[in-house]
């Protein structure tokens, strides 16, 4: 049984709806989408019609305005079925949330109703060939013109970049980090599909080339100099939270698959589930998944309370959930043996997807460095003997 605490009746009802949708409309097709490296247009339409694309859009603009925990539950259940679909909620949510938080009235009124209904798909274009975790290495440039801005540079691994209608894109304006909303049809923007990626293969990655790309004056989001510190940070915070919950679902999927396989498969005259070394792997999956879920719930409650502690809680949740998902996926393949390496079972997809989770929205190493630094900040400011040699 999945360990949960303190879901409200409405949250429990929403979780049941997301679970049912994922079981019926995602799980049966996820392996095929992974092989085809795309999600079909019919799914986008169905997904949008159910209101799931409006999850991070405020209700006054037609969105679902989900509370933080309910948004997390949506990500968990989708992550259980397909990390690429969960990635759609992540990046579309990041773009929507950034516009809602930092957009002008005009930008909010122009974009949010369309993002809420799925008429427009949003994507997050920060990463460049030389700027990933090191976002300060951002090299794309912007310059003012009489009627707007001209953008130049390259963006890489833009999730759902092939399908997006608007990109939350970052460039240096007069040397300062600045956010822009770049429409897909902006003159000078070229979108090229990326294929053959290790995991989340159906997330329709793209490379973007900006060659004297022209955007209007109202494309500027936030203020110059705050593109990373406020706009990207806000979006990435939501993205990290979304990925963390998605990893809970992914780890749960690894556990579910392993339980089912170990129940029926026999070796050396006994079921796999009766081998103690298999039990060790299942115990670690169950414990790690439960702990990750609790960390995500804690982050959710703190987000709902708009606590300054929510940021640190989200880092803890993402770090633990993503590393748990990868370890669980590796063990799930191990439990399945040779069967786990082929296309007959989804666990090889889980393993490829889980590795990506350890890299996106803050790599494991970046999480470790940030969490360690915060641990020093949280240390009580008292003088305590530290031991060691004394005279």
């Amino acid at each position, binding site marked *: 049984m999945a360990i949960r605490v303190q879901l409200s009746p409405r949250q429990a009802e929403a979780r049941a709806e997301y679970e049912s949708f994922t079981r019926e409309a995602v799980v049966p097709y996820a392996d095929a989408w992974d092989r085809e490296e795309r999600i079909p247009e019919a799914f986008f339409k169905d997904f949008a019609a159910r209101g799931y694309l409006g999850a991070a859009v405020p209700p006054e603009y037609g969105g679902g305005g989900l509370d933080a925990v309910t948004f997390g539950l949506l990500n968990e259940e989708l992550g259980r079925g397909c990390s690429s679909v969960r990635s759609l909620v992540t990046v579309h949510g990041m773009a929507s949330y950034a516009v809602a938080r*930092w*957009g*002008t009235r005009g930008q909010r009124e122009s974009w949010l109703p369309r993002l809420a209904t799925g008429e427009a798909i949003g994507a997050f274009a920060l990463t460049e060939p030389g700027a990933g975790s090191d*976002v300060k290495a951002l090299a794309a440039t912007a310059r003012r013109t009489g009627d707007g801005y001209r953008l130049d540079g390259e963006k890489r691994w833009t999730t759902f970049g092939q399908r997006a209608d608007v990109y939350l894109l970052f460039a240096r304006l007069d040397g300062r980090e600045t956010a822009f909303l770049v429409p897909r049809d902006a003159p000078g923007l070229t979108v090229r599909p990326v294929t053959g990626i290790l995991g989340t293969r159906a997330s329709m990655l793209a490379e973007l080339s900006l060659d004297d790309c022209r955007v209007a004056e109202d494309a500027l*989001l*936030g*203020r110059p*100099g*705050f593109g*990373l*510190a*406020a706009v990207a*940070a*806000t979006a990435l*915070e939501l993205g990290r939270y979304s990925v963390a919950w998605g990893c809970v679902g992914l780890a749960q999927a690894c556990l579910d698959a392993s339980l089912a396989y170990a129940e029926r498969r026999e070796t050396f005259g006994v079921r796999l589930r009766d081998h103690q070394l298999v039990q060790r792997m299942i115990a670690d999956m169950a414990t790690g998944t439960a702990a990750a879920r609790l960390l995500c719930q804690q982050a959710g409650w703190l987000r709902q309370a*708009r*606590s*300054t502690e*929510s*940021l*640190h809680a989200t*880092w803890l949740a993402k770090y633990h959930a993503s590393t748990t998902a990868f370890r669980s996926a590796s063990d799930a393949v191990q439990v399945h043996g040779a069967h786990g390496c082929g296309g007959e079972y989804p666990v090889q997809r889980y393993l490829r997807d889980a590795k990506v989770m350890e890299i996106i929205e803050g790599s494991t190493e970046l999480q470790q460095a*940030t969490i360690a*630094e915060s641990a020093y*900040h*949280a240390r009580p*400011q008292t003088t305590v003997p530290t031991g060691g040699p004394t005279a």
Partner: protein
Amino acid sequence: MTTADHKPQILAFLAQFFGEHRLAEDEDIFATGFVNSLFVMQLVLFVEGEFGITVEDEDLEIGNFNTVLALDALVTRKRAVGAADRSA
């Protein structure tokens, strides 16, 4: 219009990032080297939660955030606008 001094609360919040360094009210927070990439988000959440204001896109100017005095002035201005809106 409120003329409250918000500096004690702001200094208390910032103290967690600065260890034993005593931050002066006019010292540039970002030039100290003590803050990390999460800091601006934490600062925004803090002033919004502590003082009941909403930081908006037009407030995103470094001059509103870089010292304790600047933060105090931002909060005073936003609270005054909020109070005027409520009484209008």
